[in-house]
């Protein structure tokens, strides 16, 4: 067996499966990986395939990944039961600069499954809310049935200024409706210098949400985004995630807006 083979995955048993929505399940794996917030793993079922999946939360001896059923691999992952194994390698990528956010007014805008890669940050500051001046959280989903982590969102509301919205409600929905961008101007920002904004979601959502914050005169360097790309290796070889001279798997997936705005696919 080759030493230092970065392509060899290790198996990790599934210890818990939480159905967040009809198509999004959170899988808890027993493993010793200590990731940074915002990093990802290459996850596979040998015979089916491998894909990069962001870590949604982690703690002593476990990591969580919230996985949407959208393709061949994720369909098969959704068939797995507690006790079955997933194969993983990583963590890869750079993660969010958590230290930089401490003592500041943190604003997180997350769209859909984009909530997963920032969930561990939300939970960190939920537990350590004194480390922030203020914490605004904007969360948007397509419809009420797409809402992820509903119990946790309700818990977060105790300490965090949460605005939850769906693009389109249904007859039972009494909350906010409309895109996240609609709620950005409502956020009160006292001091731009002490503000940090994280935006994660589909490309189009990140683009227009960034523009809303820029309209509020938030400096570009205060905005952080996370990119999703196809990746076969996660270690700068396969070329799929490259944008110009930047490898999303190496220099990302988290980018400061000053860098992200010039990344043209």
């Amino acid at each position, binding site marked *: 067996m080759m030493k230092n083979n970065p392509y060899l995955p290790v198996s990790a048993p599934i210890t818990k499966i939480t159905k967040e929505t009809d198509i999004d399940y959170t899988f808890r794996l027993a493993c010793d990986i200590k990731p940074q917030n915002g990093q990802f793993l290459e996850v596979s079922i040998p015979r089916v395939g491998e894909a990069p999946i962001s870590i949604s939360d982690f703690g002593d001896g476990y990591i969580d990944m919230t996985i949407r059923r959208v393709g061949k691999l994720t369909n098969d992952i959704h068939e797995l039961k507690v006790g079955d194994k997933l194969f993983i390698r990583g963590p890869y990528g750079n993660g969010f600069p958590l230290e930089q956010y401490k003592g500041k007014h943190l604003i997180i805008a997350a769209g859909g499954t984009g909530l997963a890669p920032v969930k561990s940050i939300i939970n960190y500051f939920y537990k350590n809310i004194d480390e922030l001046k203020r914490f605004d959280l904007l969360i948007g989903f397509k419809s009420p049935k797409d809402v992820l982590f509903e119990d946790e969102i309700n818990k977060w509301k105790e300490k965090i200024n949460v605005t939850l919205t769906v693009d389109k409600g249904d007859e039972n929905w009494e909350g906010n409706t409309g895109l996240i961008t609609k709620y950005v101007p409502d956020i009160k920002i006292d001091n731009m210098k002490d503000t940090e904004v994280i935006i994660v979601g589909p490309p189009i959502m990140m683009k227009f949400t960034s523009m809303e914050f820029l309209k509020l005169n938030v400096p570009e360097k205060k905005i952080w985004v996370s990119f999703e790309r196809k990746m076969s290796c996660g270690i700068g*070889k*396969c070329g799929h995630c490259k944008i*110009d001279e930047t490898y999303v798997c190496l220099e990302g997936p988290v980018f400061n807006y000053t860098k992200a705005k010039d990344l043209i*696919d």
Partner: protein
Amino acid sequence: MGYQLLNKDFNDILNQLKSEYKIYGPKRFENKGRFSDTDVIGYGEIDKLEDIVLDEKTYFSPKEIIYPIRQTLFYFTEDEVKVPDAPEDKVIVFLRPCDINGIKRLDTIFLENGPYKDVYYERLREKVKFFMIECTEGFDSCFCVSMNSNKTHDYAVAIRFNEENVLIDLKDRDLLEYFENYGKAEEFTPEYIKENKAKVSIPYPEKVTNEMFEHEVWQEYTRRCIGCGRCNTSCITCSCFTMQDVYYDANKKVGERRRVWASCQIDVFTNMAGGHGFREKQGQRMRFKTMHKINDFYKRFGFHMCVGCGRCDDVCPEYISFSKCINKLYSIVEEGNNDEK
């Protein structure tokens, strides 16, 4: 260390080397050409000097010798994975300076980019010795001189092929035992091509702004390119791959994970689960490839990826010329010429 050897003596040496090395060189594959009754020149194992084709360029580069089209990363059964053993044979490749420089680009991606070495590449690569074919004429589509890749001193042996004999510059002392009993000592320094028929001027990377990315020059490629990916498969420096899992048995428990060459010109290169992708138009893909070869690789590593072998021009079914594309960019970026479509 220089030698002059008669062709038959050189063949004797090749014969002896074969006990220890697999020997690859540019050779003729009969009736494998693009049109009926035509041949293709490619890389394969050779037995003797006469097998080596010197008067035509190879259609494919020698990269598959160290970076196979399909490469098994590991086999899996229900509970375990097993990495295949590395091939034991050492390898000799006859190739031109541009291709040696091309393999330097592959080395850069596989061994230097990112935090880990690609062990599968490394274990094949470290077995290879370069036998450099002296190249002073080139072919019609070559532009190695412009790319600064017409020269290299990284070879085990450099060879000038004359009618009846060969001149050798031997650098690799491991091979001395094979050569020292043959021929006569004669100082030999290989020459390199000084001027190609095709030339390119590369726009200075710092001057290539985001406007160039959106420029209408790319639209022609949207109209013309059919996205076959031949330019990628023939390129000595294209290194992209995709993972592929396959299983052998009906219960799907036993199989392998392998990587296969990927092409940035082909649909689904960027597609993620759910089908969302980037660069839907061929022109955008041409821009992506062009910038990688003559712009952004340079920004990352300090030298250009493209070595000017011109194979992408040779193989394109739509007669797209990469060297002309580079020159069009230069004209737009450096000379402000926006009329050229």
